[in-house]
Structure formats: structure tokens, C-alpha cells
């Protein structure tokens, strides 16, 4: 039987639909998720199956409905909230950080908030500074939240099902440029465990750690590097929090070289955490080169296509960083 290929968008939808069929307590709430099908069409068709009580169009009130989902989750329901662009997470930071993330701890373990907040992040669409951000590092820095960022349709489905099962609040980052990406996805439900990285390419020369859309850029770069005789090992974190630094460490022991590729702005991005976890442990002594980060420039995302490309990581920039690292001691990517 041929393997079935579907898009990332369909994989996310399939996970939601599956979970909603299985469990009446799961519902989806967000702006234009109903007849419109969501700004990126992810929930298209769902309201027809589940009705407007379970696929709920909200007023433009991000704090309000994320707060409502937090309460519903505290009562044992399994809400999935959609934030139309991850830039608007700024509106529900209090609900997420001061309420959902902390309720369990503040209550001494007596309570839980099993909510999923899905949101598309990232740049590359010409939507400029307020519709292109990658702010996931904020949530990685927030104890009590988990942060997931799948790169393939397979992982999107499996991780979303795990996120919905999870008794904690999970921030689930999708990427606008991945929605049309196709990949093999089994029809039946399956779970990809949260907190486990995927070594998606084996290589001896350098370890490249990444997640989300950047994973594809890295694989592209890895091919180009292979042509030049450099074999990269690629670690797709998949979950940013909890972070599977053990997987990175294992790879470093072999390669002795670390490059992190992240889309968010470099300064205080999650890549800094990857680097720090590696260098503050034993792995420091396994590194034979200074580690490097390829990340978004420390600027908002500009509108003009060329300007946008200029500030984003690209496969070419990854190749360059790796070559600098491999070639010469001093050629560290700055």
C-alpha cells in the first residue's frame, strides 16, 4: 500500500479532528476558526462536523478566550485555543504566564491546566514586523509551559495529539511556510512524545541543532555541505521545552562541533539556551570549535522581500556558518 502524503496543515487538522472524535471534552476556540476555517485554513471543514459549540468563533479578544480556555481546562476540559498569528500572543501573556503556567504550582500541585495553544509563527510571507515574529523563547523561559515546534506533517500530527493528551499547557508553534509542505502521515492516530528530539540526518563532522521551518533549511544546507565533503548530523528538537539537550550532547560527543539554527532573533533566543546547556556541561570539553548560532538578525521583520531575506536565516547562511566553523579556528560565524 502506498504511503499517504498530506500537508502539514492537514496533519494538524487531522490531529484535532481525531482528538475531537475521541473525546467530547476537546474543543477548538479562536478567531475565524469556524466557517472561515482559520486565517491559514487549518480548521477548514471542522465546524461542519463538530458544530459551533466545539469549533468556536470568538470575538477579537485573545486574552479573554485564552483565559476562558484556561478555566475550562482547570475544570478538566481539553481546550485548543488558536491565536491567529503568534505575534498576538502578546495579548494573552498574562493568561498564559501568570495563570495557565503557574496554577498548578501555586496551588501546590492541586490542579492542572491541560490546554493547547496553537499559533503560527515565523517570517517569510512579507507580512512585516507585527505578523512575522518568532517569540517562542519567551515561553521556553516560562516554567510550567511546554513548547512544541514540529517541522514535518508526521511530527505535527503526532506531537499535537500528545499535546492534547498532556496534562499541562502546551504552546504549539506552527509555521506559515510549512502549511503546504507535504509528508507521509499515517491515517490512524499515533503519538510523538513531547520532549524527544529527532536525529534526522546522521553525520560525523558537525552537529546542527534546529526546529520548525529551519529544519528544512538545515537539511538543504546539509546536502550542500555533503557535496563539499562535510557530513552534518541534524538534530530537530521538535520540542523546545522540555528541551532534549541529551540528544544534542550525544551528537556533540561524536562531532565536536555545534551550530544552532533558529529563526527567532539571535539575542536571548532559545538557541542561546542550547549553546549554554552544551557548554556548561561536560560537552564543553568535547567541543573542538567555538559553537555558532545562525539566527534572525536583531531587528523587527521588514516588509520588502529582499530586506526580509536579508535578516532571516537561509540555507546559504547555514552553509557559510558551518564552513567557517569547520575550515578554520577563527572563522566563527558572528
Amino acid at each position, binding site marked *: 500500500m502506498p504511503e499517504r502524503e498530506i500537508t502539514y496543515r492537514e496533519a494538524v487538522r487531522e490531529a484535532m479532528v481525531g482528538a475531537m472524535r475521541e473525546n467530547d471534552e476537546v474543543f477548538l476556540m479562536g478567531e475565524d476558526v469556524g466557517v472561515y476555517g482559520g486565517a491559514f485554513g487549518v480548521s477548514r471543514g471542522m465546524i461542519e462536523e463538530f458544530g459551533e*459549540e466545539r469549533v468556536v468563533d470568538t470575538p477579537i479578544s485573545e*486574552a*479573554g478566550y485564552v*483565559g476562558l480556555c*484556561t478555566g475550562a481546562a482547570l475544570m478538566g476540559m481539553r481546550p485548543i485555543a488558536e491565536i491567529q498569528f503568534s505575534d498576538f500572543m502578546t495579548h494573552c501573556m498574562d493568561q498564559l504566564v501568570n495563570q495557565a503556567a503557574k496554577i498548578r504550582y501555586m*496551588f501546590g500541585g492541586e*490542579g492542572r491546566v491541560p490546554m493547547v495553544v496553537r499559533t503560527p509563527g515565523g517570517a517569510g510571507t512579507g507580512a512585516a514586523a507585527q505578523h512575522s515574529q518568532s517569540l517562542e523563547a519567551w515561553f521556553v523561559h516560562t516554567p510550567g509551559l511546554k513548547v512544541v515546534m514540529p517541522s514535518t506533517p508526521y511530527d505535527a500530527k503526532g506531537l499535537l495529539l500528545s499535546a492534547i493528551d498532556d496534562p499541562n499547557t502546551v504552546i504549539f508553534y506552527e509555521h506559515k511556510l510549512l502549511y503546504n509542505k507535504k509528508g507521509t502521515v499515517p491515517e490512524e492516530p499515533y503519538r510523538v512524545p513531547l520532549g524527544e528530539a529527532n536525529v534526522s540526518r546522521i553525520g560525523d563532522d558537525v552537529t546542527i541543532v534546529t526546529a520548525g521551518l529551519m529544519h528544512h533549511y538545515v537539511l538543504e544546507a546539509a546536502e550542500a555541505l555533503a557535496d563539499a565533503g562535510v557530513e552534518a548530523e541534524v538534530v530537530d528538537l521538535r520540542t523546545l521545552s522540555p528541551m532534549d539537550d541529551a540528544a544534542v550532547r550525544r551528537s556533540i560527543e561524536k562531532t565536536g562541533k555545534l551550530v544552532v539554527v533558529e529563526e527567532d532573533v539571535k539575542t536571548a533566543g532559545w538557541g542561546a539556551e542550547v549553546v549554554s546547556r552544551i557548554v556548561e556541561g561536560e560537552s564543553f570539553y568535547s567541543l573542538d570549535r567555538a559553537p555558532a548560532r545562525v539566527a534572525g538578525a536583531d531587528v523587527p521583520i521588514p516588509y520588502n522581500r529582499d530586506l526580509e531575506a536579508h535578516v532571516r536565516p537561509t540555507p546559504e547562511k547555514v552553509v557559510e556558518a558551518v564552513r567557517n566553523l569547520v575550515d578554520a579556528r577563527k572563522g566563527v560565524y558572528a
Partner: protein
Amino acid sequence: MQNDGKRVELLRQMLLSRHFDEKVNDLYAEGKVHGTAHFYVGQESVAVGAIAALKEGDVITSTHRGHGHAIAFGLDVDRMAAELLGQATGYCHGKGGSMHIADVGAGMLGANGIVGGSMGIACGAAWAFKRRGQDNAAICFFGEGATNEGIFHETLNMAAIWKLPVVFLCENNQYGMSMSVKKATAIENISDRASAYGMPGVTVAGSTLDEVYNATREALERARAGEGPTLMEAITYRYLGHSKSDANLYRTREEIATWRKQDPIQRFATVLEGEGVLERDEWRKLDEETRLRIEEAFEKASREPDPQPESALEDVYA
């Protein structure tokens, strides 16, 4: 209206609440509790009157000024005292303190250190009741200061369009910290804001327990009947400072004295006397009894074990 036994019980709850907060106030003054706390003294009739109208399975959400709500909801003063002293046996096992006392299983969905922080949670509980077809409702307590937060607006609107079974109970105690409601808004009554959402608004004399009870009962009936939320405003006053550190520069002694004259506990006790439900010396006795109950709670709590330091690293994730 409640039967006689229930009415005496309501008086008892108010007294328990008053003594609890007066005790905590003393403990702060003596440096025996750390962190901060906000006292409900003067507002007891609101929590007790409103919560008396609830039934099994209903829930409440509370605020930074939450001791009174917790006691009225039936939380155990022993475990509350233990929490304030940071003990392992407290409601939050010492992790929460005054501003986070909760008993989710029982339906007390938590005090909250964030002004307006529990309004989404209350709507979520109401949402769950509605989705599950349960005949239950939520009361969401908050101060008049919280009605200027955006979350107030967003949640009231959603509760209205979806007809959620929730009662928004604004305790208008005249100040948000030092900010007078007269300066913080340009309207007469907070309940006037209800019309912005297409829900009924009602203002009651918060010091009169029966008024609070009756209005809440009506609002709850509406909620349970699927007619949606109500914005209730209870006019009240806090006698003590906003929190333990408040020089009260923003109000006058006279103002405080005037309000103390219409004390909700005195008032309700007098009503009960008038109804022949309770004699003066009986309520003096009740007063003393509840005072001792609180003394005992803190005494007992002080002998409870501290949590293990390592427990600080637990309970981040379920």
C-alpha cells in the same frame, strides 16, 4: 430566604472571616507572617451573602482579597492558616500563600494575585457547565478597580454572547488601592457597564447580607435558566489598608468611621435579633467562639510541619 439555622451559620461565617483577617493583620504587625495579604474586613456580607445562594457543584473565583470568599465557600480555616504560615499542610502546601488559596476539587478555583486574573477562569468554568449540560453556575468576584482592566471587558462580552452561567460580582469598596472609583471611572455605577454587553446590571447595598443574597439568587437563576450572565455590583468598603503596607493617605478617618457605622456583621446580627432568630448574648458568644476558632487554627498551624525544601522543585508540571 434561608431557614434560621442557615442564617445563624451565615453570621458565623462572617465572624469567622472577620476574626481570621484581624488575626492575620496582627500576625503581620508582629512580623510572624511574611509576604503580603489583603484584608476583607468590612466586606464580609458580600462573600457570605452571595455564596449562600450557590448550590452543590457551583464554583467561585476569587481575588487577592480572597480570605473571606474562601471561608464563605466553606474552606477549612485550619488549612488556610497553615497556608499563610507556609506549612506543608496548607491548601497549597506552602507554595501559594494568601493570594493563591484554592480548593479546585471543591469548586473554589483560586484567589488570584492578578487584578482581573480570574475572570477568564470563571468564564471557563461556566463554559464547562454549559457544554456538559450541568445545571451549575460560577460566581466571579472582583473589585471595582478590576473593571478597568481589559480582561473585564473581553470576558463580560464573551459571557454575554454565549450566555454563560456566570455572575460577575463586583465588590465596589470605593478604592483600588489608593485610587478612588470616582477618579478611576466617569460613571455613576459600575453596574452601568452591563449595558455595554447586553446583560443586566444591578447595584445592591453590599453591607446588607440579604440584599446581596437575593440579588445573587436572582442572577444565578437567570444563569441556570440559560439566560446568561449578570453584572452585580455590591457597594461596600474595606476598613483596613489595601494591604499590610498602606498609610491610608488617600482617604479620611471620618470616611472610614462613617462606613464602620454600617458594619455588615452588626447589621445582620441586628436583623437576626429582630427576627427573633438570635439573642444579643448568643451572638456575643458566637463572636467569641469564632475568635477562638481562629486562634486555635493559627495555633495549630504553627505546629504543622514545614514543607521539604526540595518540594520547591515539584509540581511545576503534572
